[in-house]
Each structure stands twice: as C-alpha cells, then as structure tokens.
C-alpha cells in the first residue's frame, strides 16, 4: 500500500541537523541500547525487561502454588520466606511486568506511530524512564534476597513494615524500589502527555485519535496525579523507619490508617493504570478482526476519561474493614458501583463491534475474546466486593485474590498477549506461527481458569489470603488451583518456543499484514517499522 512512499532514504537532505545516528550506518551496541533516543528501541527494551520480570514473578508464583498444592507442605521453609515471596511477586508483576509491557513497551512503540509523530517529545527523558525502571528492579530483587526479605505485602502497610517488625535493610530496598519505579512512571507520563497533545500530525484531531492513544493519554494523567501521592506515603514510611518520625506510629501519635488512605488513593488509580492500556489494545484487535470500525468510538474514548475521573474517588473500597465510618462506607460503595457503568459501555461496544462483523479467529483475536470473557467475570466479582457489607466477609480472602487475578492475570495479561501477537510482525518483521499461537492461548486459558476459578470457592468458604498453609478442608480446590498454575507455567514454554520461531523466521511481512481491518497509521509503514518513521509529516483526513 505504501511501501514506496515510505522509503526514508529519500529525504536525507532535509534539515535534520545534528542527527548523529541519522545516517544508516548501524549504531553500535552501546549507542543503540544504552544511549537510545529512539522510541522503538526503547519500547523494545521495555518489552524485553517485562518478559524477564514476568519470568521472575512467574517463578515466584509457581513456588507459591507448589507450597499450597497440599496442606502442611514444606516447600517454603518459613512464614517469613513466604511473606517475602508474596511481596516480591505482587510488586514485580505490577510495576515491572504489566506496566512496562503495556505502557513503556506498546505505548512507546505505537503511540508516536499512531499519531504520525517521528518520536516521543523528550527522547532522552524516555530513555531515563527505562533505566530508572531497571534500577528499581535491582532494588526490588535486593529487597527479596537480602536477609529475611521484605514481608509486608505489596500494599506495604505499616506496622508490618515498620522498624520494629521489619528491621532489616531489605524493606528499605523495596520501599526505595517504588521510588525508582515511580520516577520512571512519572517521567514516562509527562512524556506521553506532551507527545500526544503536541505532536499529532495535521488532521489527527483528538476526536480522530486511535483508542490506544486515548487509553495511554488517560493512563498518563492517572500516573501523573497518583504516583506522587504514593511517593509521599513511601517517603513518610522511610522516615518512620529510619529517621524517628511518627507519621504512622501510634506510639508517637501517628495514624496507620492514614497510610492506607494515601496508598489506595494511589492504588485504585493504579489498577486502572494497568487496565486502560489493555482496553486500548483490545479495541484495536477487536476492530481489526471484525473488519469493522469500533462501535461507538467517542463513547469508548470518553468512557475511559470517566473511568479515570471516577477512579480517583473510590479508593476506600479497599478499606471497608479499616475503621472508616459508616457514612464513608456508603459513599465509597456507591461511587465504586458507578464505575461499572463506563466499564459496561466498553464491554458492550466491543460486543457490538463484533456483532455482524466477519470475524477472523486469529491468535490476537482469541486473546482479545478471552480478555472480554474473563474481564467480565473479574468485573462482576468487583461489583460483589464493592458491597461494603459483603466485603466485611470477603475482604482479604481468596475471593479477593480471584477477583484481582481475573482482572489482571487474565485481563491485563491477556491484553498483553493480544497486543504481542497483533504487533509482533510490525515490530520484528516476521510472522508468529499461527498454530503455536493458538496452542499458547488455549493452554494459558485452561491453566489460568483452573488456577483462579476455584479460588472463588475457597474464598467464599473462608480461606484467608497470605498464608502458606490451610486446614485440610480446603485441600481439594487448592490442589486444582495448583495444577492449573502448573499448566499455565508450562504454557510459558510454548511462548518461548514461539519467540524462537519468530526470531529465526526468514519470512517477510507486508506493511499491513492484517488487511482491510487494520486501519491505524502503524499499518502504513513497512514491517518491521524502520528505525525512523514519519520523517515527513503525514496528513490525515
């Protein structure tokens, strides 16, 4: 379609002065990967690091499910070790797997391309965001491995992580890892907003922007406003631990519940930070493989904006049993239920997009349909948990674990794989093996559902979260859950085989290998996308 017009050798004579790497001499390894100012290379770095972090976090989860396979197991030697593992698993999966894959990875690769911009607004800052993430990963690993590790859970509540109960330096490393990851996200957010608001090609008005770009825009605003509050809370924790303050220390007059407020004021927007980019990916995949434009485009965009706003005023639904007043409970319950409305808009629009479309069940579409299906289950259990009365019973038990794994491990992660199979040809230039893609999907689908569906039953029966052991009565479903985890673990091997096949493939792909359904700008450039795209301003009608 456009391969001839996008030959970028044609405009070497343009006035891009001082572009050191602009010629087509290949930059050396250090220059390309350590000093990068190229959004595609930085996106690749993010995706690679997300794969590595995902493996580390995944191994930790396999350990946990191995321990919980039978009652009174001794795979993990002590409760302290257990606590360190669950903490690191949660932190790594959220901050070093889901966020880097969706925002840093796909966001970096495709936001500039989709709006017809040649790169991000602040390329050096972009690179620094990535390296802050790496430094944070080193710290979170130190927090896991030094001494007893960090055992306060990913929610890092005091007093669990105060100087009395977590005296070692491991906890300080984990807390500072959040600072480092937070700075990374914050700089990334500023970069995305500036890019999207300032660098759209002529004709690419806000109301024509692809939904993935909308998703990243809203996500970036959530990051910009939520991350600093977490940073403040973590700073106060570190001061309490090390510098004799009493922010959350009752002995000096402090209030530990205040930490929960600050944490969840960040934490609830954070869950939308993880799922909004996923919504964006799913919209593109569903529209492409239904060969129809997305149903209710504007409604889809503004549903995300509304979710972003409302997401800031529902935080205390995580605190229904934390000594908040009855009036607060009523308010937070109702406000939380309101979010189900824009979320419903999204689900119904995806279904309406598929309705009457000529649907092609390629691997990305399977993941997308899997996403919709499983996210609906997770959303429904969310509505259950939002009832303050019910949540008195369900809070912090396996029903909650099932809820957030349905929206995250089965929601966000499915969207990551949907995006991966959708775009890998554009990123690498080579096709993935369709058959193995489907094997990967089905093994994962069966594995994760076996893992997490029984956890609803365990939770309703009263099994609490964050314990390494349980009464014999819970043995049956725990066994099923662990078998499911082993299956999903094995499906990762399929994924690595697919990666191997992609990167050893000799086959070349056309610009738009999905055909008429794929309409956004990244499909107008060659596959793989050249190092520099849109050196000439594209004009969108």
């Amino acid at each position: 379609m456009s391969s001839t017009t996008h030959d970028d050798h044609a405009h070497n004579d343009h006035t891009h002065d001082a572009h050191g790497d602009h010629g087509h001499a290949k930059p050396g390894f250090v220059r390309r990967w350590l000093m990068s100012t190229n959004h595609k290379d930085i996106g690749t770095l993010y995706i690679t690091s997300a794969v590595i972090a995902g493996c580390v976090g995944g191994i930790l989860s396999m350990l946990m499910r191995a321990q919980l396979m039978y009652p009174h197991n001794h795979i993990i030697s002590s409760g302290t070790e257990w606590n360190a593992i669950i903490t690191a698993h949660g932190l790594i999966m959220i901050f070093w797997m889901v966020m880097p894959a969706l925002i840093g990875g796909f966001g970096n690769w495709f936001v500039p391309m989709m709006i017809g911009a040649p790169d991000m607004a602040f390329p050096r800052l972009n690179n620094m965001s990535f390296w802050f993430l790496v430094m944070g990963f080193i710290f979170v690993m130190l927090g896991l491995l030094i001494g007893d590790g960090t055992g306060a859970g990913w929610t890092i509540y005091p007093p669990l992580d105060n100087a009395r109960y977590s005296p070692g330096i491991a906890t300080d490393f984990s807390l500072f890892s959040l600072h480092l990851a937070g700075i990374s996200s914050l700089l990334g957010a500023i970069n995305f907003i500036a890019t999207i608001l300032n660098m759209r090609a002529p004709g690419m008005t806000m109301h024509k922007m692809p939904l993935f770009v909308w998703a990243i825009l809203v996500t970036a605003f959530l990051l910009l406003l939520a991350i600093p509050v977490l940073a403040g809370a973590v700073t106060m924790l570190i001061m309490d631990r090390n510098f004799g303050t009493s922010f959350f220390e009752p002995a000096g007059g402090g209030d530990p519940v205040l930490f929960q407020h600050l944490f969840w004021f960040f934490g609830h927007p954070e869950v939308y930070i993880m799922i909004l980019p996923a919504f964006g990916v799913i919209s593109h995949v569903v529209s492409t493989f239904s060969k129809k434009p997305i149903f209710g485009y504007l409604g889809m965009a503004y549903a995300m904006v509304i979710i972003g706003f409302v997401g800031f005023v529902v935080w205390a639904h995580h605190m229904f049993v934390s000594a908040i007043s009855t009036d607060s409970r009523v308010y937070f319950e109702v406000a939380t239920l309101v979010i189900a409305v824009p979320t419903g808009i999204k689900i119904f629009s995806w279904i309406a997009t598929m309705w009457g479309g000529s649907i092609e069940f390629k691997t990305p579409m399977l993941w997308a349909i899997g996403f919709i299906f499983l996210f609906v289950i997770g959303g429904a259990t969310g509505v259950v948990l939002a009832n303050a009365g019910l949540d008195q019973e369900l809070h912090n038990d396996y029903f909650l674990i099932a809820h957030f794994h349905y929206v995250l491990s089965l929601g966000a992660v499915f969207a990551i794989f949907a995006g991966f199979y959708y775009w890998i040809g554009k990123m690498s230039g080579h096709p993935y093996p369709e058959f193995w893609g489907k094997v990967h999907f089905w093994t994962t689908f069966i594995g994760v559902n076996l893992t997490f569906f029984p956890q609803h039953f365990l939770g309703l029966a009263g099994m609490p979260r964050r314990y390494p052991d349980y009464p014999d009565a819970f043995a049956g479903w725990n066994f099923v859950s662990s078998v499911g985890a082993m299956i999903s673990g094995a499906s990762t091997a399929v994924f690595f085989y697919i990666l191997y096949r992609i990167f050893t493939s000799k086959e070349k792909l056309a610009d738009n290998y999905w055909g008429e359904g794929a309409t956004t700008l990244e499909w107008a450039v060659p596959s793989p996308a050249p190092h520099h795209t849109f050196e000439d301003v594209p004009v969108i009608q």
Partner: protein
Amino acid sequence: MSGEVHTATNQIKSTVPHPYHMVDPSIWPVLGAMSAMCVAGGIIFAAHFGNFILLAVGLLGAMSTMYVWWRDVVRESATPGLHKMITQIGLRYGMALFIASEVMFFVSFFWNYFNYFFYPDKMGYAMAPVWPPMGVTTIDPFAIPLFNTMVLLLSGTTVTWAHHCLLEGDNKGTVQGLAVTVMLGLAFLCGQAWEYTHSPFNFYHGGVFPSAFFIATGFHGFHVIIGTGFLIVCLVRAMRHQFTPQRHFGFEAAAWYWHFVDVVWLFLFVCIYYLGRSAIVAG
C-alpha cells in the same frame, strides 16, 4: 463519528519534513538513573550503617548529570533549527506537567496534616483529641513565618520585574531583577534555617506534630533550594545574554516554578503556621 476517520488509508503523503527536534543518543540518562540508584542506596547505608560514601557518590553523579545534560539542552536551543516553535511548546507542556505532579506530592503531606487537624481523634494511643497535640509549643506565625511570607511574595514580584525587562530587551534590568530574586530566596532559606534550629519541638522522636510540620515545610524548603538554583542558572545565562525577548523558555520555567513554590508557601503559612498554632507560641 466512526472509526473510519483515523485510517491509514486516508493518509495523504506530503514531503514536508517534520518540525520536531530529534535528539542524538546520549549517555546521560543511564548515568542519571545510576546516580539516583546510588542516592537511594546511599540513604539506606547512611541510615543503617552511618556510611555516607555511596550517598556522596550518588549526589555527585546526579549533580554532574544534571549539569552536562542541561548544558546539552542549552547548546541545542542555541543551535539554529533545532528548537522550533513546536519543540518549545513541548517543553512548556513538560514543565507544566512536572509542576502538576509536584502539586500532588504536596497534597500527600497536606493530607497527612489535615488528617489530624480535622480529626484529632485519629491520633494514636491515649492522646487527647486536640490539634496541635496537648503540650506542644508552636512557632509564632507572626515572627519569622510572616517575614518569610513577605520575602517570598516580594520575590514573586521581582521575578516578574525581571521578566518584563526581558520582554523589553532590557538585559541589565533582567540581571538585576534575577539577582534580587535569588537574594530573596537565600534570605528565605536563612530564615527557615534559623527557625528550624530554634524550633520549640524536635524532629527526631518528637511525635506526630513535628513530623507533620517538618515534612511539609522541609519539603517546601527543599523546593526553594531547587528554585533558587534554577534562578541562579538563569541569572548566569542572562549575564551571558542567552535570552532574547522572543525566546527565553528556560527563564519562564524557572519563574513558573518559583511562583508554584510561592503559592505552596502561602498554604503552609495559613494552614500550618496560622491555623495550627497552639495557645502557647514560641517566637
């Protein structure tokens, strides 16, 4: 509105090169991130083992990175054709968004303060539900804090004076205005240092009131230091005639930041010093 509108197939090819500034590869970002890691690790080592070496290395690295990186930016801005209008607008977005995130950082510390101010019964253990807590002697808001308020408000006007001179092309006036602003910033910091060293309560193991007080005012003081540094850089650049009436975003960013610091102070003065004063105040 249908999805049709944002299609690649509707794209028109032009031969107009894009107007953005494509930045050369740079090693500073990696060094910056590594320095930040050293600072973080350095704080941990200092707190646990009293060893300040890593912290010093990290701070040195961070400062040097900032110096060389921003030196590059200044050079690029002086290279014709790199910072076109659209790139300057992008920088404005960047600075405005950064300030927005800083506002949220302060929100967390004000939230901490108001938690006890409005709900003193939330204080731990058997503390009487009054704020400030029983027995706490607070700082007289009409002594140094009022003086510092005046200093900062005045500095807000002097930086505007410098801005107007800049717009008029009056470089001497710009330098004077900036110099006075920097001096006022330093005066503020001296006032705060005196206040801290003479405060009637202690930071270390002083309980919840000093914690809330020192984190909010201290974090603000830290921002005054950054803002003053930023203004000093602008002063040097003004003396070197690097600003023109048309192009001086570096200056404007410093001024925005300074006004932001100023506004935060007004909130601190009213909410913490004035509304949070106790019956017994110490001058």
